[in-house]
């Protein structure tokens, strides 16, 4: 099974480890120095890094060649499927987790965005129909007739 890696920039790696492990079911794989940790959840590997100065051995969070520093935040995020989003949201709220929005019903899913302690978004969603599920085998293949040219005779 292939591992999928996502890198999040965080202000405080220890606080981020606690957040992802306590609230979202991640496991710590390594935390060799204060600026770096690697967590896993299923096939997702989440790499947490704090901004480091140029010349730091860890290369993932150094400033860009033009000097721009990396920061937490933005809108791009990984997503986690939950069976009951209302229950999950309620539990997280009780646990003091920050929300960016309320539960939104979109096309095929209900979704909500939470934030880690550094303000990075994580999206939780509950599928409302099979195509929205994450399991590729749940996708309905198109019947061949639909994609082959129709016989005009």
């Amino acid at each position, binding site marked *: *099974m*292939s*591992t*999928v*890696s*996502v*890198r*999040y*920039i965080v202000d405080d790696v220890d606080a981020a480890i606690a957040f992802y492990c306590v609230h979202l079911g991640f496991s710590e*794989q*390594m935390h060799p120095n204060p600026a*770096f940790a690697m967590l*896993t*959840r*299923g*096939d*997702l590997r989440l*790499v947490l890094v704090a901004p480091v100065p140029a010349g730091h*051995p*860890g*290369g*993932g969070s*150094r400033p*860009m*060649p033009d000097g721009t520093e*990396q*920061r*937490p*935040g*933005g*809108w*791009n*995020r*990984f*997503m*986690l*499927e*939950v*069976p*009951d989003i209302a229950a999950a949201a309620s539990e997280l709220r009780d646990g003091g987790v920050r929300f*960016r*929005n*309320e539960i*939104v019903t*979109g*096309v095929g899913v209900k*979704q909500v965005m939470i934030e880690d302690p550094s303000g*990075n978004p994580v*999206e939780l969603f509950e599928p409302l129909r*099979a*195509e929205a*599920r*994450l*399991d*590729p*085998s*749940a*996708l*309905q*293949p198109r019947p061949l007739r639909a994609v082959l040219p129709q016989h005009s005779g």
Partner: protein
Amino acid sequence: MAADPLDALRLPVVPVEPRPQFAAALQRQIEAAEATAEPAAAKPAESPGAAPSQTPTVRYFVDDLETAVAFYRGRLGFDEELIAAPSFAMLYRGGLRLLLSVPGVPGAGAPLPDGTVPEAGGWNRISLQVADLAGTVEALRQAGVRVRAGVTAGVAVRQALIQDPSGNLVELIEPTAGYRDRT
């Protein structure tokens, strides 16, 4: 000397663009077809309360769906699973599902209650492993892809940062000594 009569049968050589993920996509389609053929296998997908899938999934915001899909397919070997133009696409590369959403439309791109609209960019990113990082980055650069940070050495990896047409970062890594693929 008369022309070879067989010349009429010869076909011009057409360069074929390699699509590394083609076999994986085909496999998924076959497996999906097989899964649907058996009602027992298809059932969990429709029953509420089924165990949540753990397929790693990431959502990126993009300014223009068509350009983004072309970039991820053409430059990074993603395969498309679903395109709901003009605001949403779902792509795959290996075990990663990448969702592309256009800001400002209902659903994931909808403005927040305070009016803030999602946008492309930021520093969080997917990290894709490649076999020949220097060669890959050079090929991408020549193809006009923006390279935000060229190849640098980190701990157990070499890495580079490229940008999609909307400015989202994609990290490319090549493992070096000491890299742990899976623990």
